[in-house]
């Protein structure tokens, strides 16, 4: 009951006319930017960070609550109305959603997606209220060795499990860790990797890394491969659903929520797996199997709910442990840090009001989203027609402004360009972006925890493996790292040592297999 009281306290803090206005602004801007093609939720949050610089912490968190859900919903509008989803979590929505839109049911697809997002967001945010404090209770009992082990699990998870190639994931992670090293050592004050530059001595701001990799890198990458003919946008009126659509949607919403939340809440879960699972579940359970592949409403309702529930779920490790498990969460952590708030298990004890306010603003943002999106959908659809030169010029414009505003030094703009080139190369070579950001954010934290842990034992390495929690974590890491070797040996014994055709010499993750399964399905129909 304590949690509920604390949450009510959070609501009381949020519900003032000014704060509600800010929440509304967050949702509107978040959706508008999220709808723009090529801009996913993570880039939305990164680009909109500067808006929050001038605000007090409380109000900027309220703004974030709105931007977070707004950006998420905007992305799914894009994938329904334009059949070229930008981010992996919306791929599944596009499968059926775009087919529905082409069949003249865009209004229903957007409606089930908006209402489903609302239902999933509300249930999942309520789940945060009950799960997060439990995780915190557990997390505060952990010493530096256990905490170190949990962060390492997050590293291995984002690098090895989420992407399609482990070696590429680890390469990205290590580049991120190296970026995190740049600056002044926090114990001895020595300069590392600064090459004598006073600008680097102050560490590279994580916001600059995030904006450089997400926004500038993406803009340069798209510029190099700009589609000559923009995709066709399907016009849409006001979203609505018939009674039958409601009947077919509500169960997929609930199932999608149930699938999405747990995946979001565990480190290395992500939104891709639950959205695919939800799609496969709905296809199996539907009473209208003939419609799948031609625009079945269940195939939009379920994955959309799963996507949103998973996004809300990422708030659990974010608020309870300080661990970002998706790109958007990583940027929210960066924003916390820029306010001098240290994320981690102590956050809830030290800043309970802030945490509950953020949770309350998630509820409110989610509600505004529903109120706003149903009537405004035709306006959002118009945003999809924005001329691409203006769109990407605008991204570069806002990225420069945001990065400059962090420290007010032109040097950061050159750094931003360099990081943009890095982001370009990563997209070119298929290196995942998330491990890099996670490495850059958590690298300094890992080093601190490791040095603290070793300090307790006077440098004896046993200080790193104390406690059953740490053992479980290391066992998990070893299992993840060793598994492909084991399976390769097995295959080798079978007499077939050729890597699978078209593969990258690694075992494809379940996500990729699911993707393959669903795309072949799509083609078969």
């Amino acid at each position, binding site marked *: 009951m304590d949690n509920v009281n604390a949450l009510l306290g959070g609501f009381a803090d949020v519900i003032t006319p000014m704060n509600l206005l800010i929440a509304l602004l967050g949702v509107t801007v978040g959706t508008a930017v999220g709808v723009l093609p090529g801009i996913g939720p993570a880039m939305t949050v990164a680009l909109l960070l500067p808006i929050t610089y001038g605000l007090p912490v409380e109000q900027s968190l309220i703004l974030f609550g709105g931007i977070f859900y707004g950006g998420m919903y905007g992305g799914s509008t894009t994938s329904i109305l334009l059949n070229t989803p930008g981010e992996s979590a919306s791929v599944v929505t596009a499968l059926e959603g775009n087919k529905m839109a082409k069949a003249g049911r865009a209004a229903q697809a957007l409606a089930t997606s908006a209402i489903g997002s609302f239902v999933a967001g509300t249930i999942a945010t309520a789940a945060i209220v009950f799960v997060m404090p439990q995780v915190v209770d557990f997390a505060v009992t952990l010493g530096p060795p256990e905490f170190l082990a949990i962060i390492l699990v997050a590293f291995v998870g984002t690098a090895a499990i989420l992407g399609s190639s482990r070696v590429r994931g680890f390469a990205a992670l290590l580049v991120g860790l190296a970026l995190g090293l740049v600056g002044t050592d926090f114990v001895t004050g*020595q300069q590392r990797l600064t090459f004598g530059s006073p600008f680097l001595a102050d560490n590279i701001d994580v916001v600059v890394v995030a904006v450089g990799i997400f926004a500038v890198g993406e803009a340069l*990458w798209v510029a190099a491969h700009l589609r000559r003919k923009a995709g066709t946008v399907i016009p849409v009126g006001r979203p609505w659903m018939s009674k039958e659509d409601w009947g077919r949607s509500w169960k997929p919403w609930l199932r999608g929520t149930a699938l999405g939340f747990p995946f979001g809440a565990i480190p290395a879960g992500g939104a891709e797996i639950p959205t695919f699972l939800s799609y496969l579940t709905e296809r199996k359970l539907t009473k209208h199997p003939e419609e799948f592949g031609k625009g079945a409403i269940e195939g939009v309702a379920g994955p959309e709910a799963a996507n949103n529930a998973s996004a809300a779920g990422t708030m659990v490790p974010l608020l309870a442990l300080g661990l970002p498990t998706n790109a958007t969460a990583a940027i929210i952590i960066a924003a916390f840090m820029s306010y001098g708030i240290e994320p981690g298990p102590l956050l809830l004890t030290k800043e309970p009001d802030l945490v509950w306010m953020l949770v309350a603003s998630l509820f409110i943002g989610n509600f505004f989203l529903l109120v706003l999106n149903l009537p405004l959908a035709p306006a959002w659809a118009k945003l999809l027609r924005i001329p691409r030169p203006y769109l990407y010029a605008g991204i570069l414009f806002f990225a420069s402004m945001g990065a400059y505003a962090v420290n007010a030094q032109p040097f950061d703009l050159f750094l931003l360009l360099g990081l943009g080139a890095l982001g370009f190369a990563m997209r070119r070579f298929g290196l995942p972006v998330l491990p890099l950001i996670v490495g850059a954010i958590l690298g300094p934290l890992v080093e601190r925890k490791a040095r603290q842990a070793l300090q307790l034992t006077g440098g004896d390495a046993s200080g790193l493996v104390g406690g059953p929690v740490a053992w479980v974590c290391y066992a998990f890491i070893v299992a993840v790292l060793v598994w492909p070797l084991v399976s390769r040996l097995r295959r080798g014994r079978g007499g077939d040592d050729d*890597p699978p055709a078209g593969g990258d010499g690694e075992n494809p993750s379940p996500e990729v297999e699911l993707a393959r399964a669903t795309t072949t399905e799509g083609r078969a129909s």
Partner: protein
Amino acid sequence: MSTEATTAPEGTTPSGAGPLGRVRDRAQLGLCAALALAGVVVVVDASRLGEVTSSNDPVGPRAMPFLVGGALVVVAVLYALDVLRGGVGEAEAGEDVELGHRADWRTVGLLGGAFALNAVLIEPLGWVISGSLLFFLSAFALGNRHHVRGLAIGIALALGTFYAFAIGLGVNLPAGILQGIL
């Protein structure tokens, strides 16, 4: 799969293939070299740090960079092995991305130039001018041919953000030579 995967020759029988016969998209090897180089730089940089350890800090500031740099070199080698075995990374797709044709380096170069110009001009001329130029030049590089409209949008955006953020919210944006006018 990326375009490289479909255009590059598939690995033929091991006996008939040369040493690089199975490699698709050889530029990947350049990336491996860059990763290894980065690892070496991290290690070399760390090795010139003073070895300061104390009872408070038994490992000192060198341990982490040694670990990261070493791991970078190891991963670079593993990555190269993967490439040599025919592995290829999947280039990122997107709403406005068409991977069918070659990268348009001219546009990327112009954008980089516009971006760097903004970095140089932002303090002397101020955000309103440098930001307008950034938008106008970037839109031009990306194929906008309505020059007046592009410039007008750029100026509107730069003025709007300056008033909203620098004056309204107190965000750091320089006024430059327009100090006193804005």
